[in-house]
């Protein structure tokens, strides 16, 4: 990609991702409802929610919490923008970790026991999924000799084929990353949880709205990562990628509705086993 293209892609992401993310979230709620034999809310419901939160009275437990959440939002946007601008995948991943850390600090900052427990859970779930994401980058590098998203997306051949192991592992940890059942330990999208609202317990008003918007950006970026496995520099590749990403989204909704929340031990163990078997296995195959 040229610099101009990169900038255009980044701008497009920043402008369009919230809309797409919001729709995705709306579809999630609608489809979930239908899976539960309910009618469900309108597709635009997530937008209404955010609109409402923006217009509510602003309350906060302290003066610092907002800083972390703003950072979370900014860096999440930045991560996505870098990803779609075709930059270095490792840089994207590290920035994502940074964003994540800000969310955790935001949860910590109030001193609320529920959000802190949520933060702890977020941290070990992150411990379970981070290796896979790094291994994904490693595999791309081994296959294409570059960490650059633009190089990867414009290379011949679909990455899923040689990278099938990490692809499956990535799908597995996508559930954790999207905080969906069975791994919605730290912050469930369903409002019923054993630690109240988990990390978001003390978030309200604009702060909560920012969290939601960040989730939108995050979802789009993660689906972008799914699509990257299919991109091969042609329009067809992009179309297949988008379809695959949407299918992945539906799959996640289905999984979300088909599972109970598992024990944290299971989350960590399964995450690591998947990483070892599928992720490291894939690396080993590529090395040979």
């Amino acid at each position, binding site marked *: 990609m040229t610099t101009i293209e990169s900038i255009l892609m980044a701008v497009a992401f920043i402008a369009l991702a919230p809309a797409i993310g919001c729709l995705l979230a709306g579809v999630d709620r609608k489809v979930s409802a239908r899976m539960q034999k309910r009618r469900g809310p309108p597709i635009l419901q997530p937008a209404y929610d955010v609109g409402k939160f923006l217009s509510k009275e602003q309350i906060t*437990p302290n003066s610092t919490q907002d800083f972390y959440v703003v950072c979370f939002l900014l860096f999440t946007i930045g991560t996505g923008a870098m990803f779609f601008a075709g930059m*270095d995948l490792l840089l994207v991943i*590290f920035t994502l970790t940074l964003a994540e850390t800000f969310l955790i600090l935001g949860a910590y900052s109030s001193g609320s026991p529920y959000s802190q427990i949520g933060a702890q859970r977020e941290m070990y779930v992150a411990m379970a999924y981070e290796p896979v994401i790094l291994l994904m980058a490693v595999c791309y590098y081994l296959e294409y000799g570059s960490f650059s998203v633009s190089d990867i997306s414009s290379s011949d051949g679909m990455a899923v084929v040689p990278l099938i192991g990490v692809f499956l592992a990535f799908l597995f940890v996508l559930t954790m990353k999207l905080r969906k059942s069975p791994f919605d330990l730290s912050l469930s999208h369903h409002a019923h949880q054993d630690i109240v609202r988990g990390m978001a317990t003390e978030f309200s008003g604009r702060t909560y709205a920012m969290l939601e918007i960040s989730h939108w950006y995050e979802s789009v970026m993660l689906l972008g990562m799914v699509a990257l496995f299919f991109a091969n520099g042609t329009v067809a590749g992009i179309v297949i990628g988008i379809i695959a990403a949407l299918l992945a989204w539906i799959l996640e909704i289905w999984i979300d509705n088909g599972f109970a929340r598992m024990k944290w031990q299971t989350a960590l163990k399964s995450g690591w086993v998947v990483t*070892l078997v599928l992720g490291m296995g894939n690396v080993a195959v590529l090395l040979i």
Partner: protein
Amino acid sequence: MNDILFLLAFPFVAACLMLAIRDDRIRTAVAEVSAAIVIVTSAWVAYRYLGQPESFAFHSETIDSLMAVTEFVLGLAIIYIGYKHKKYLASVLGAITLVLFLGFEVFLKEGIETDNALYIDDLSIIMVLIIGIIGSLICVYAVGYMRDFQKHHPDDKDRRPWFFFLMYTFLSAMFGIVLSNDMTWLFFFWEITMLCSFTLIGYTKTDEAIRNSFRQLIMNQTGGIAFLLAMMILADRYGFLSIDTLLMQDGEAQWIMVAVMLLAIAGIVKSAQMPFHTWLLGAMVAPTPTSALLHSSTMVKAGVFLLLKLSPLMMGNACGYMVATVGGLTFLLASMAAISQSNAKRVLAYSTIANLGLIVACAGVGTPEAVWAGIMLTIFHAITKSMMFLCVGTAEHHIGSRDIESMDGLFERMPRLAGIMILGIVGMFLAPFGMLISKWAALTSFVEDGNLVLIGCLVFGSAVTSFYWTKWLGKLVCTASREGNCEDTVHCQEWVAVGSLAVLTVAICLMYPGVSDAAVIPWLEGAFGGFSEDLVPLLESNNMWIVLIMLVVLILLPLPFFRRTSKRVVPNYMAGEGVDSMSYRGSMGGTVEVSMRNWYMSGWFDEDRLGKIGEVLTVIVMAALLAAAALGVFA
């Protein structure tokens, strides 16, 4: 050359001076002035020799004899001390060292002349700067710190002259290590640092301190013996004892490989890699400036320095494989063990072991990219980790605990210190700070090298690393504290040191490409004969721009916040039974304070078990490869 000699000798002179001074104020002045002189001298040396490696023909029988005699006397002293404290193993090892040393001096060294006893190159300059600047800052810090320390231990005799003597002597010894070309010199300084560390760990003279100091001693004696054996092999088989000659040898040759392996083991011991990592954990009983100086930023760096120095000889061979595996495993297992720790110094110790493991692994991989990453890691780690130690030390004196659990809401109680600590922690594992950028380079080089074990260790290890740092960070940022601000009693020396290190942490990130271009790459070109910048893909200009932007955002963004908020402040949600943000009405009546303890997952990350696993694995790797090399399997 005189500047080099000055650099070597001056700290020792200052040390002797301080041993003689009994008055606190005068000693403070001397300490501060000496520190300033050391900083200026190191900067001067760096300025003068940067990009111009030079060797110095320097040979003096007197000095050689002096060193030999000193070593002999100290060896006898160790045997005696070990005997006195009933640590017979130390005595036995001391005796072995002594016998080997005598044998070496009498039979092998004869006739081997090393013309260039001293040298300086870009890697040495980096180390000189680390030792000179960071070491001196820590010494300055120690002035303030030890004043409080003495207050907290009023019953103890004031042995501060002795303390400062050791600290400054140690600086000299460190300069010696990084500037000596003659391996007998190197060995001499190597042993001196061991003894300084031994004495400083035992400084408080508690049973635990003495036990731990002997553990350090015994392990490092083992390393010393390995070093001696290596020298004996080189002297016996090849008849040289200089580093530069060694670096010109063929790493695959049987006895060269054995010698390099033995040297590598000496380096592994010194850099507290598994199975020798426990000495560093035990060393945490020493006063905090000691931990910062010896056990995080300099002495342990002597180990990795040696390994990095030797890395061209390790590229792609069994020795490299040994070193890389030990480093990789140590990185992973020590990071895991850090999760189960709540003592801040122990967390820092484990993190130090882990980070050194990464550097060691880089050295073991031995490709220019890996070594590049290793050197960068060394720089960042030295700055950031020593800063963290100093912060913990200050915090301990003001909140009365070095337990991370007691740091709840430190951001409210000691805002500036907590801010610096946050910077330090963030600097240890997050983008866009140097440690992470270097880790990134390390990962790339491991992938290039195709080493599956290292990739696995790094990938899992980083995930684990985030966990223990983030939960510490969380403690600092939460606002749940009832105690008031207690920051104004921090000594100005402590602020100077900590503040300078904080500035350095950020500055060095901003100067990242500069450091790389000015010192690291030229050295690599020299050492590996050709090295192109492209090999480090992350240095691509647009990546660096992003990193810079992130850095600036992170530094400027907090400014608009942290004022009084315009929002309505509502106490924390407490399930409806809250009294205020921090307490609620309890079951048995009365008010119950909420408290939050981080997770330690000791069932998963039990430090003893992890330590055992690491010891067994690394011993097997080392023993097997060393034996195989000695039998000539790889030749």
